[in-house]
């Protein structure tokens, strides 16, 4: 069976519609699964329409590639820990980037063999290759930093940004030469330099900033797909590319707003490494007051008969995998008639929506989980706020201390609860390296220990205690 170009175009349109509905499904958890199926259907239709379109004539390599890809992808998806999602995502981005480069080069070779090259095509190819290559090497670095293969420390040297700028200019130069004179060497040099640029752009960024970078690279991978669509005159690639491009861009934007930093600051800033200079001011004064530490029993005392407990999970909960223990604890509290709410800050954890996925993994119903703006007014009426491995997102310095690097970042109003208990292992600061003024408040005590252990102890205390 072979379908005409027009049938193919209509199939592509249907598949574009399905992709849009797939994303629209994510409007609510209830419709999200159906959305994912729409996405799968769209992909299937698109692939079939391409295979049947008459342009594809040999299937051996394709079958091999898809089979191997299905196997690898399936295993990755089944095995990955929810806490390792950022790495997986980075790895997948790098694949899209590399695929874009490979497709562009192969398209060039095909057109060269058929003698159908022209300047516009070569210009479009260059755009695809450069964006793809940057996406690839950038994502590889991001993956390495997140996985701990490469040190998370920002690698910095003088004139870094100037070098990158220079490199970009040189790349454009080679691209122009390639587009105008069909010079193969220019193509090769351009590609290599683009890989290098991706590497240099991401290496100076601290490991902790990787979530924003990953979203940025997600956006790039979308634009790379769109650029490929222009080269291949394939409208479906253009549509999907734009959708993905916006997804990454909007997520980076959301993260930056929630951290009160500009994207430029993330890309050029080298945040969260060495310089913790400005934080002496208010925090320094507060330090002299000392910090109270508490035992599990102290905390239970206030929680077991409370009317409302708000739990604030953070990165530490993810690291310690404490969500299941928290779920047990929540159920025990609810059995005693305590209302339990989980309060999620938009950048708690290390990627957008990170906490939601972990809580969902532990089967915590999403009606119990509230976003920052919805839950903030509730702290004032809560008996206890239990902070589990969260830090920066609870730091009142963001509201009060103008000299703090996180000043202006919207935070959870934890300090308004009657009692605040914070579970963490040490006095070390969180991601931003800023000391947390919350710990010096009268109503706040710290429970030192691993989040999972402490949560299990809390649950046990509630079970065991002969109340």
């Amino acid at each position, binding site marked *: 069976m072979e379908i005409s170009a027009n049938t193919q175009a209509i199939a592509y349109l249907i598949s574009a519609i399905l*992709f*849009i509905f797939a*994303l629209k499904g*994510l409007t*609510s958890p*209830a419709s*999200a699964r159906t959305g*994912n199926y729409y*996405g*799968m259907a769209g*992909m299937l239709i*698109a*692939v079939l329409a*391409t*295979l049947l379109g008459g342009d*594809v*004539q*040999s299937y051996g*390599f394709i079958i091999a*590639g*898809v089979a*191997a*890809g299905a196997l*690898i*992808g399936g295993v990755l*998806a*089944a095995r990955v820990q929810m806490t390792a*999602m950022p790495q*997986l995502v980075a790895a997948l981005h790098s694949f*899209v980037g590399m*695929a*874009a480069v*490979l*497709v562009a080069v*192969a*398209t060039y070779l095909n057109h060269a*063999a058929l003698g159908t090259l022209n300047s516009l095509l070569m210009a479009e190819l260059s755009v695809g290759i450069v964006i793809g290559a940057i996406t690839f090497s950038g994502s590889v670095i991001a993956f390495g930093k997140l996985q701990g293969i490469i040190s998370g420390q920002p690698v910095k040297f003088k004139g870094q940004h100037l070098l990158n700028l220079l490199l970009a200019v040189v790349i454009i130069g080679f691209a122009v030469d390639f587009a105008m004179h069909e010079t193969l060497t220019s193509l090769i040099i351009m590609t290599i330099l683009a890989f290098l640029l991706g590497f240099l752009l991401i290496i100076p960024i601290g490991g902790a900033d990787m979530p924003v970078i990953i*979203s940025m690279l997600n956006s790039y991978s*979308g634009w790379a*797909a769109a650029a*490929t669509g222009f*080269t*291949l005159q*394939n409208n479906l*690639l253009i549509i*999907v*590319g734009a*959708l*993905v*491009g*916006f997804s*990454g861009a909007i*997520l980076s934007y959301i993260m930056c707003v929630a951290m009160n930093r500009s994207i430029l600051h993330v890309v050029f800033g080298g945040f969260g490494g060495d310089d913790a200079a400005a934080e002496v001011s208010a925090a320094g004064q507060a330090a002299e007051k000392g910090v109270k530490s508490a035992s599990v029993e102290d905390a239970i005392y206030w929680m077991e008969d409370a009317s409302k407990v708000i739990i604030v999970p953070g990165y530490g909960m993810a690291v310690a995998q404490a969500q299941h223990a928290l779920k047990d604890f929540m159920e025990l509290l609810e059995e005693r008639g305590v209302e339990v709410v989980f309060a*999620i800050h938009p950048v708690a954890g290390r990627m957008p*929506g990170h906490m*939601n*996925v972990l809580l969902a993994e532990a*089967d915590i*119903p*999403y009606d119990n989980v509230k976003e920052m703006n919805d839950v903030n007014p509730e702290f004032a009426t809560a008996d206890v706020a239990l902070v589990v491995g969260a830090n920066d997102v609870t730091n009142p310095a963001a509201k009060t201390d103008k000299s703090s690097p996180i000043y202006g970042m919207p935070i959870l109003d934890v300090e308004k609860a009657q009692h605040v208990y914070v579970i963490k292992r040490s006095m070390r600061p969180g991601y931003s390296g800023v000391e947390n003024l919350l710990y010096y408040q009268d109503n706040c005590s710290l429970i030192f220990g691993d989040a999972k252990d402490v949560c299990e102890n809390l649950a046990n205390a509630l079970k065991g205690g002969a109340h």
Partner: protein
Amino acid sequence: MPEILVALYIFVLSCFIGYWVIWGVTPSLHTPLVALTNAISGIIILGALLATGLQGVGNLAEIFGFFAVLLASINIFGGFLVTQRMLAMFNKKKKK
């Protein structure tokens, strides 16, 4: 209209759609969103299929194409399945 202008129209309109559809995603599903966009950006496989399947051109293109098909497939399968896995967690209703 020449193809490049058609492409431009479609690109611009899709950007608007991208803008609205993504802002509509509820924050609690942002992680699945990232995984899903990963999956659908595997659409680059169309380019890979065309590059690999074209008859009578150099072997080099075919080999490049093969790797592109492989990488894109990992994205597609990995992306959709991990999204599925995550969403399955969300879908469990309150038991009580």
